[in-house]
């Protein structure tokens, strides 16, 4: 009985190690074997459209509402201390440092990550990947690399759009609705936000999250069991693993960037 449990544990550990190795292999080979620029460009543009442009609606709407909620909550709390003028800086710092990269990455994992996994999984199930191989085309170059690069490029851009729309949404509530002075809102924000410390650090987080989410998504698709159930499970794993990885990496990056050690 005990031996069985130890065996199962060992088997599971080995499987996880093998899976991690395979995902690393896919990542390295896709980055190394990226297509020639002329061939890459149309594939990349297409994937940027699917991964980035089609994610815009959910990013813009979420950014606007989260910004509006932040503005409302910030005002409600700060007004008790007579500091409602500081809503602008509170909203900007929250969004730029944390909410924009993290929430964008979570939404990106749910929309684009799951779509990437499902698409690649279905290509595997319908033998399109095998067919590419037999035509003499490396699927890492043709299928995986453009999607990986599209994810790396789109995530930081979407995160920035999220932050801008969120700040605008907060201004809509705090300035236009609740009556905070417009000059105070924007001036406090300008004074409090440091370009390198806040904007660049937020962008670095977005780049890391984009890398992690896209990597998990393409690996899960490429390595899935090519059945409807297998694709469904892989899609779920993408969203769960990517979300957990984003939250975990966020803590590590925040500690490195803003921790006072």
């Amino acid at each position, binding site marked *: 009985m005990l031996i069985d449990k130890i065996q199962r544990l060992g088997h599971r550990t080995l499987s996880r190690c093998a899976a991690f190795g395979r995902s690393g292999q896919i990542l390295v080979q896709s980055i190394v074997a990226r297509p020639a620029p002329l061939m890459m460009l149309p594939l990349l543009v297409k994937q940027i459209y699917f991964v980035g442009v089609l994610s815009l609606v959910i990013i813009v709407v979420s950014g606007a509402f989260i910004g509006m909620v932040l503005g409302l909550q910030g005002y409600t709390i700060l007004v008790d201390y007579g500091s409602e003028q500081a809503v602008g800086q509170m909203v900007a710092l929250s969004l730029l440092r944390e909410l924009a990269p993290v929430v964008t990455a979570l939404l990106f994992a749910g929309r684009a990550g799951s779509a990437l996994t499902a698409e690649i999984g279905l290509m595997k199930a319908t*033998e399109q990947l095998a067919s590419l191989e037999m035509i*003499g085309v490396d699927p890492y170059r043709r299928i995986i690399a453009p999607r990986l690069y599209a994810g790396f490029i789109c995530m930081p851009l979407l995160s920035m759009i999220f932050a801008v729309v969120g700040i605008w949404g907060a201004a809509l509530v705090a300035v236009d609705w609740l009556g905070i002075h417009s000059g105070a809102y924007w001036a406090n924000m300008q004074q409090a936000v440091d370009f390198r410390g806040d904007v660049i650090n937020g962008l670095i987080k977005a780049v890391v999250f984009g890398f992690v989410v896209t990597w998990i998504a393409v690996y899960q698709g490429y390595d899935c069991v090519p059945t409807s159930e297998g694709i469904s499970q892989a899609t779920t794993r993408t969203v769960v693993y990517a979300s957990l990885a984003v939250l975990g990496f966020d803590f590590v990056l925040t500690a490195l960037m803003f921790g006072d050690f």
Partner: protein
Amino acid sequence: MVQEKPTGEVAALPLDDIIVEIKGMTFTRGSRKIFDDISLKIPRGKVTAIMGPSGTGKTTLLKLIGGQLRPDAGQILLEGQNIPTLNRRDLFIVREKMGMLFQSGALFTDMNVFDNVAFPIRVHTSIPEEMIRDIVLMKLHAVGLRGAVALMPSELSGGMARRVALARAISLDPDIVMYDEPFTGQDPIAMGVLVNLIKRLNQALGHTSIIVSHDIQETLSIADYIYVLSNGKVIAEGTPDVLKTQDSEQVRQFVDGLPDGPVPFHYPAPELMDELMAGGVFKC
């Protein structure tokens, strides 16, 4: 050359010019041995058929030749190059000489029929688009689907999709074309055309064709040489005439489609009565 099989069949190998040679190959999936130390030779420029009951690993054999799977032991030599030992880059170079028709068609769902057939040409050559158009139309005309050039794969029937996939497989006129169940799902008219097409392509262009099929009459009519697989072994080989006249029980069972005989119809399992009498609920 006359070859004596361990099972007693006598077969004549038609050519000494071999393009693919499999030597002592063993392949296992899970705990099941799909191939057990098999050896076979595919003659250049001929139509070679791989036949046998379902689940004997015919498609797996094509994937092994294409380097999509690696055997546990043995060699798969394509013009002297051992496929399982090639690195990824060399493997893709070797595959440029191959064309494969997949059982499902495996068309690219984001491209229309024209772009699917043009894809290998665009990727591997720098032929101008005007010429690509002509080549694609000729290939599609050969499979009777020139009129379907603008359709998407989702708008094709299963049989049509496989014919488009055939046009794509031969678009670059490869040295070897592997056909996985090319006749499945075809109506009698299309099947007759395909049988002729495969034979004519083989004769006109000197392709080496490897056909995996269950359609005995069609395959016997065009194959120059046939291997019959069962239980991980080559149970018979020879020209169609040799196989048709063989008295071997195994070959007769397959050619005549008999359920009972030396080739088991059932996947390995305990006796039905033992299993029924054991009772209980099903457990994996």
